[in-house]
């Protein structure tokens, strides 16, 4: 019996990938049993469907499918690593709801659907039964970003009457006002200076893994890649503002992290600083900068979720009063968690042998090319982040443990396997980076070329592609088709 062809059509697959986790969230809430198993199966379903979507996607147009696959894998890993203490109905259903909302945001080409996905993704962090923040700043950050996006989308549809992103490409819909509102939405959602403080508050006061998943949806960067760069190619004079803010954020929180001793806040600052680099890379509008930003997106996402996961495992095993003021000596009891923490931490700050080295290399080249002076701050911020993550590693894992804690509390088999998979991703990605970089090099052209207006497109010659001469001939018609 053959499988009907409509099963492999993207709209159906996308609907399945989103519906499965949402349906699983409802089942979990109703059944209240087998929580981890159900969550893993739902995430696995999204992984399989996203993988099929990625395979079916045309070359150079697979960025969002790749992101869907990445986020599904992250959710799968997070549900496996989630300590039993945290494995409650609220947490599991909230994570699954977040997965469906994030996939919806990645997959849509419609402004209104994007707004709905944006709102749904923050619902778990507003709802008291899920992960409602205890302080006002996370709530304010998320609400302000949503308000700014809603206003921007309202103005766009009012001024152009269109809500399809592909129809609006290169038209500067709504002008500088809408551009500014979108930038405000990015600033608040991504935690860019001066709206950075809510991220650390959310991480410190909220559940570690769901908050890490919320932050690593990277909706701010998504907005830049999906709306700001393609829709506003004529805002040349305003684009650098975003880059300056991103680099200022990277530097500011890197300095802030140097003196921070709360492990959760410190990790939040590092994640924020490194993810701000994604924005500066996207804005650099150079091939290296954009490709570096896209690869860095993957590195930051995997590394920070893994680091938060390991930190949560340590909190569960050794108490929640972990601090970086003294040496806790946890490596003696959890050597594999220590090694995994070191590898993910070093990957985050771009040490060689990891995928982070390649992404940092491309990012530094891209930002230095577009903004030489501010670009210099990027390696400085990264160097400070490296010192901070190494300090956290030494304080948590090295030294002598004094409490008389004698049992070994290393990673359990399920945790070990999923951490090993993450380690393999960042290490094998570092050894064979071209497999990932070339993939994103193709996406780079789409983002880079989108900067040019359709009117100017005739003068824009596609760049030659290393190792792929065919693409240089096929790219231009594809962009034209995409624009019209």
């Amino acid at each position: 019996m053959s499988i009907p062809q409509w099963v492999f059509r993207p709209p159906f697959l996308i609907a399945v990938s989103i519906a499965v986790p949402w349906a699983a969230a409802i089942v979990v809430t109703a059944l209240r049993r087998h929580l981890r198993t159900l969550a893993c199966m739902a995430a696995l379903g999204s992984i399989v469907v996203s993988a099929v979507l990625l395979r079916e996607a045309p070359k150079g147009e697979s960025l969002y499918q790749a992101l869907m696959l990445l986020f599904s894998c992250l959710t799968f890993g997070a549900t496996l690593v989630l300590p039993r203490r945290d494995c409650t109905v609220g947490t599991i259903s909230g994570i699954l709801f977040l997965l469906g909302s994030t996939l919806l945001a990645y997959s849509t080409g419609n402004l209104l659907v994007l707004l709905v996905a944006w709102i749904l993704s923050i619902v778990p962090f507003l709802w008291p039964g899920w992960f409602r923040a205890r302080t006002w700043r996370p709530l304010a950050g998320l609400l302000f970003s949503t308000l700014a996006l809603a206003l921007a989308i309202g103005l766009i549809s009012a001024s152009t009457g269109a809500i399809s992103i592909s129809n609006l490409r290169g038209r500067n819909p709504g002008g500088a006002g809408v551009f500014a509102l979108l930038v405000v939405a990015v600033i608040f959602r991504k935690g860019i200076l001066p709206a950075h403080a809510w991220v650390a508050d959310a991480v410190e006061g909220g559940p570690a893994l769901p908050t890490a998943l919320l932050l690593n949806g990277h909706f701010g960067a998504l907005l830049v890649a999906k709306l700001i760069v393609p829709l506003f190619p004529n805002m040349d004079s305003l684009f650098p503002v975003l880059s300056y803010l991103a680099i200022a954020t990277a530097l500011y929180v890197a300095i802030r992290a140097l003196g921070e001793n709360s492990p959760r806040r410190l990790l939040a600052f590092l994640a924020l600083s490194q993810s701000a680099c994604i924005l500066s890379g996207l804005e650099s509008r150079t091939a290296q900068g954009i490709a570096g930003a896209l690869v860095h997106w993957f590195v930051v996402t995997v590394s920070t979720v893994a680091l938060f996961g390991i930190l949560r495992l340590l909190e569960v095993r050794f108490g929640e009063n972990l601090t970086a003021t003294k040496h806790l000596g946890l490596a003696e009891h959890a050597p594999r968690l220590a090694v995994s923490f070191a590898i993910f931490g070093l990957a985050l700050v771009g040490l060689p042998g990891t995928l982070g080295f390649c992404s940092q290399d491309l990012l530094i080249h891209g930002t230095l090319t577009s903004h030489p002076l501010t670009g210099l701050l990027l390696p400085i911020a990264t160097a400070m982040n490296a010192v901070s993550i190494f300090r956290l590693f030494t304080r948590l894992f090295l030294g002598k443990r004094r409490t008389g804690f004698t049992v070994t509390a290393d990673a359990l088999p399920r945790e070990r396997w999923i951490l090993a998979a993450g380690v393999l991703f960042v290490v094998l990605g570092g050894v064979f980076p071209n497999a990932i970089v070339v993939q994103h090099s193709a996406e780079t052209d789409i983002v880079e070329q989108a900067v040019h207006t359709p009117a100017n497109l005739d003068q824009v010659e596609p760049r030659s592609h290393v190792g792929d001469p065919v693409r240089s001939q096929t790219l231009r018609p594809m962009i034209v088709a995409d624009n019209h």
Partner: protein
Amino acid sequence: MSASQAILTLVVMAPGVVFGTLALLWLFGWTPGERLLSWITGLTFSACTLGIAALTWIVISAANRSAPVAVTFGNWFAVGDYHFPLVLMADRLSLPFLALAAVLSGLIGQFSATYLHREPGFLRFFLLLHLFAFGSLLAFAAGSFDLLAAGWEMVGITSVLLIGFFQLRPAPVENGLRVFGVYRACDIGLLVGIFAMHHWAGTASFHDGFPALTGTRAVIVSLLLLLAASGKAAQVPFSGWLPRAMEGPTPSSAIFYGAISIHAGAYLLLRAEPLLARSVLASALVVLIGLATAIHGAIVGRASADAKTSLAYATLTQVGIVFIEIGLGWRWIAVAHILGNATVRTMQFLRAPSMLHDYHQMHSAIGGEVSTGGRQIEDLLPERVQLWLYRWAFDRGHLDTILDRWVIDPLVQLSAYLAKLDRIGTPWTSLRSGDVAPISLRGPAGQRGD
């Protein structure tokens, strides 16, 4: 791929493959025994040494002796007109360094099998030794500055992890953090220098000709590379980390700070020699830094209280002189100097733990203690100057104090100020005392490897 290319590839990759395999197996729960580990280490570095001997023979016996053995694997990654070339190269400059790295790594492996017997971190030490060997072989066999930087960073991180090898004591761990900070700060010079080469010359490769940079551009890139080289080679004003690095086990001190790592900075300058030759300012600065370091090392070393730190400063003095030789353009004298210094210092470091035993043997052989009398060169100075110099040397030239006062303290104060800013708008009940540690990066006072 010819036989020589295959040998070069195997020589560089072997320690990396051993490291990766052992690390992965450990991650999945298997720990090899000491005997197996030392056997694998011996086999790996013996094979590397034989391979390098064969390569040397091939290069020497070739009709054109200056032609290197080069292997091109294409690009590690490429985006647009930027690419990261993956080229390994063995030429007359890199071969002595490759031989030094392989022979000394093997030697240290064999020595450590006994020295670290039943030490809890036995496997960790050998894993890091293989990673270090891989990093150093990669840096020395790199055909481009991009690849050199990758090996360079690996050497740096293994160095830091081995300083903190005795992880149960806070001092080694904190000193490792301090060294890491200095390395990362100075490596910015290498990263930005490589970017400048790509930006201005379109390449950072040197296997088929050196990046064509002249004038101000050559000066800027030279100075950036000099910053990286000075940090790695502990030159003034970055010498403060060297005594702190003596916290690691003696075999790692021997190979890192007596031989390979401390000379990596000199290797970088030797590689960048065509650039230095085009920049009088940079060459002069290399000579000045080398001179200052040689004097600093000679004076401070005389006031060091322990054997390893004295040896470290003796090495530093010689590396300072090597820098002078490089700045003056005496390339091959510098290479010979490095080889001799590295070999002698490794031997001295490895003998350091048994120094008392050696003295006792010597005393019993000569029938009494050796006279500690005799004139020292500092006796020629006025007493006030002697006292001032002693105080200066005792605090190791005040270099750490300067770094603390002018770099680390302002950064930590700025961090504390930013923390206050971040608290605006939060209720006072949410503040947590002790969240900001003013001395978190300074390391333990008075615990600098003594």
